[in-house]
């Protein structure tokens, strides 16, 4: 892998968003992943979502673990701070960062090896704590960076590139996230940008733990017949419950959608998610319903995608801890130190 910066040249005619940023402002370095890797499509979707939301790029902190997927934060939002931490431990680093400064946007990027194996515990606990973040797992069912071992999300019975059959049961991170109380849970497919971009945008807007499992085929090690995470397999077995749009700072244009199948979800910050339902019965506010829906479809070998659950009134870890609005990293001795007079009193009480 080499270090390649993108040329700074901007086409003067590039479209700008509300803040005057162009697409290029949301890009990072040139990817060094395999050509055609699903992860690169997710990178593109993140760039698109941030552009559309008119986020100030430097107000995002992008944090990852270790793996091909975890390299991707280097390839988007070049003007924001990134942190490639250690394998499987992105969630704790992100939690700490979030505690230090509640004013930034936190994007956690991880792989299925990273999150479902070595980091399974940290994944679970960050979700249950309600850390305000967008947690994206780029799920390819294998360890890409270490060359093709099964990961814990590989389906039982699926085959490795070398023809070995996986005999272990798979962990479904979406099911777990639902069970753990994530307040925004979605699944998508790296090859479905139209679905993925608004999902990421909505997740970023969501206040609380947002989790998106993105099936992201590994061209090098998991895109063959017998894989259940290949492009072909996912396209054939994908069953979307809804399509959505995120509307920020403008009125919903409900007429875009066929009446009766659009559901508006207003989030904490006033942003709205317009859900165009494909499955008319699907209710994304029903955690239990989502769990059974998911299980029923999984039994049929179907991969359910879309926004599966959202609690628009979620609270985050800072609210649970009742911390001050001022970011903790800006507090100085005057705010934090009780001073010598108090210490004298403490001394007196210890005699």
């Amino acid at each position, binding site marked *: 892998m080499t*270090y390649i910066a993108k040329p700074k040249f901007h086409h003067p005619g590039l479209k700008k968003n509300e803040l005057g940023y162009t697409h290029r402002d949301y890009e990072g370095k040139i990817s060094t992943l395999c050509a055609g890797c699903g992860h690169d499509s997710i990178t593109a979707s993140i760039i698109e979502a941030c552009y559309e939301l008119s986020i*100030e*790029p*430097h*107000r995002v*902190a992008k*944090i990852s673990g*270790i793996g091909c997927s975890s390299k991707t*934060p*280097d390839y988007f939002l*070049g*003007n*924001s*701070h*990134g*942190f*490639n*931490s*250690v394998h499987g*431990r992105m*969630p*704790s*680093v992100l*939690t*700490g*960062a*979030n*505690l*230090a*400064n509640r*004013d*930034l946007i936190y994007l956690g990027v991880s792989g299925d090896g990273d999150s479902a194996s070595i980091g399974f*515990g*940290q994944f*679970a*606990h960050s979700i249950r*704590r309600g850390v305000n973040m967008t947690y994206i797992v780029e799920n390819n069912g294998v360890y890409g960076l270490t060359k093709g071992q099964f990961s814990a999300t590989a389906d039982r019975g699926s085959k490795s590139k070398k023809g070995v059959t996986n005999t272990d049961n798979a962990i479904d991170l979406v099911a777990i996230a639902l069970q753990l109380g994530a307040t925004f849970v979605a699944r998508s497919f790296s090859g479905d940008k139209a679905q993925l971009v608004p999902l990421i945008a909505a997740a970023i807007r969501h206040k609380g733990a947002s989790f998106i499992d993105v099936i992201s085929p590994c061209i090098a090690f998991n895109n063959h017949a017998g894989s259940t995470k290949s492009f072909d397999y996912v396209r054939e077995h994908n069953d979307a419950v809804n399509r959505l749009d995120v509307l920020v700072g403008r009125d919903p244009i409900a007429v875009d959608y066929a009446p009766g199948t659009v559901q508006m979800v207003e989030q904490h910050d006033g942003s709205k998610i317009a859900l165009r339902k494909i499955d008319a019965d699907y209710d994304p506010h029903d955690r239990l319903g989502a769990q059974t829906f998911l299980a029923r479809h999984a039994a049929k070998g179907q991969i359910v995608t879309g926004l599966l659950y959202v609690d628009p009134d979620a609270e985050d870890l800072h609210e649970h*801890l*009742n*911390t*001050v*609005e001022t970011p*903790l*990293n*800006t*507090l*100085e*001795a005057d705010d*934090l*130190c*009780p*001073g*010598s007079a*108090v*210490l*004298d009193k*403490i*001394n007196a009480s*210890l*005699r």
Partner: protein
Amino acid sequence: MPDKKPISSVNDFVVRFANVNGSGSASANEMFARAILRHGVPVSPRNIFPSNIQGLPTWYEVRVTEDGHLGARGGVDLMVAMNPQTWDKDVAGIEPGGYLFYDSTKPMPSTKFRDDITVIGVPLTAITNSTYTDPRQRQLFKNIIYLGSLSALLDMDPKLIEQLIGEQYKGKEKLLSSNVHALHLGRDWALQNLKCPIGLRVKKSDKVGDRIFIEGNSAAALGAVYGGATVCAWYPITPSSSVAEAFTAHCKKYRHDPETGKAKYAIVQGEDELASIGIVIGASWNGARAFTATSGPGISLMTEFIGLSYFAEIPAVIMNIQRAGPSTGMPTRTQQCDIIACAYASHGDTKHVLLFPEDPAEAFEFAAAAFDLAERLQTTIFLMLDLDIGMNHRLCRPLKWDDARQYDRGKVMTEEMLEEGRDFGRYLDVDGDGIPYRTYPGTHPTKGSYFTRGTSRDRYARYSEEGPVYADNMQRLVRKFETAQDLVPRPLQANAERPTKYGVIYFGSTSPAMDEAIGLLEARGHQLDRLRIRAFPFHSSVASFLAEHDFVYVVEQNRDSQLRQLIVNENGIDPVRLVPIVHYDGTPITARFIAKAIGDHQDHLKVTPLRKAVS
């Protein structure tokens, strides 16, 4: 009458309470220690508790010490034997001429006593049962009743104990009066039925002064409050849990916004130590002062992240309250056994800053300083306490804070500095001290952002695995560690009265025993210069001290003489000149032990400074 003359001593003896865990004895025993303090007499108490919860034995030892020796002494002058399970061992541990205090409700066969001690029986169960009907009350008040009897036997002023009870049960009148009543039940019974006082006595003195009585863990937690820690992530482990618990309690008291009532801190009980240190690193990366508290096994789990902190240069503060290892070892026993593990924690070439406070006052100061150091040096700082200081009350000088003190946030490039056009290279050594500038996330729209990673990178934080680029970075980290030498607390030297070729190096909780041992060694004719090491990296005065002495003893509480190894390793000196004096059975090292070990070695060397001086 015992066949050995009963020990007679005023304000200088050791009382040990043998209890059953869960019997509620802890508060009565602690009150005993505090009551002696209120007489103006220094005490040095120690909890001795095996790693169990209920029903098994615990001991609490109070060294009463007019001379102010705060190390453990060894031996027991008065045993308060309240645990039938450990009776034989407890009785055997009494010094010849010592005293045995026991519950005489049930008669004991004479074979259960010793002829060379004074046996004092008080029918505690009988007295409690005739006064109280509720079983819990019976259990709790029995402890206060023996406290009352001891006050008579040791000639203590009951008013001072009443005062303590009054403070403890302030506003709870019923509890207050019933405790005072129980105290007098025991006291009066002893006065009426026993020869009071015995040979051991507490006499009012003025040796406590303005000193305070506090546990090391609580003091360290207070240091974190004063030092500006806003994020604490931890996972329970003995003997460190009380650091986080004390930090929580202190924060609840002192760290809320008066207007909104909101917290100026965040405390997370992590799911494990990996998460705890991860949270600390994430928070510190983002510019908050953060710490975790743990013990040996937790350090083991944290090492991968500690390597990241070292290499990616992210501040972190770890308070390591050491216990006896390896593995689960003896989790409730004390040792100084994580020196090497912490100094070189993680894989690859690493070196970390260690601070060794000797008592709670230094635990407070060093804890607060650790946050300045972590941010100044952008690396992990270990505060190395141990169970002996961490979980025991110690008498120490009052805690001090200079209100003019501002936090040293280290080299942080601000938005303004970036706007001015300052060159920002995250790993650029602009000042030659090995310390680069960092920026906090979110600082500037187009300048100063960088990618933090554990992989090799160049001075501008660009990924690179080029050999020279990697070596350049590793060399700068060495320079940074050299810079640290002058930032950490310096060693303190105290010279013997006469010039001597012999020295002793020691650190941390060994201090009080060492101070006392010097006196014992002098009495044996041995003169030694002393150097108390307070931090790693070692200051240049450590090398000078070694150069100035033929032999230097290194006193520590672990099997492999880990500090000595570190000194040899870091100074490249001949190990033969560094003599290990080690104590590692999990009990705190004593002056008697040190004096014997060094004295025997000196005798063996035929060191005769006194005779020479006389002739």
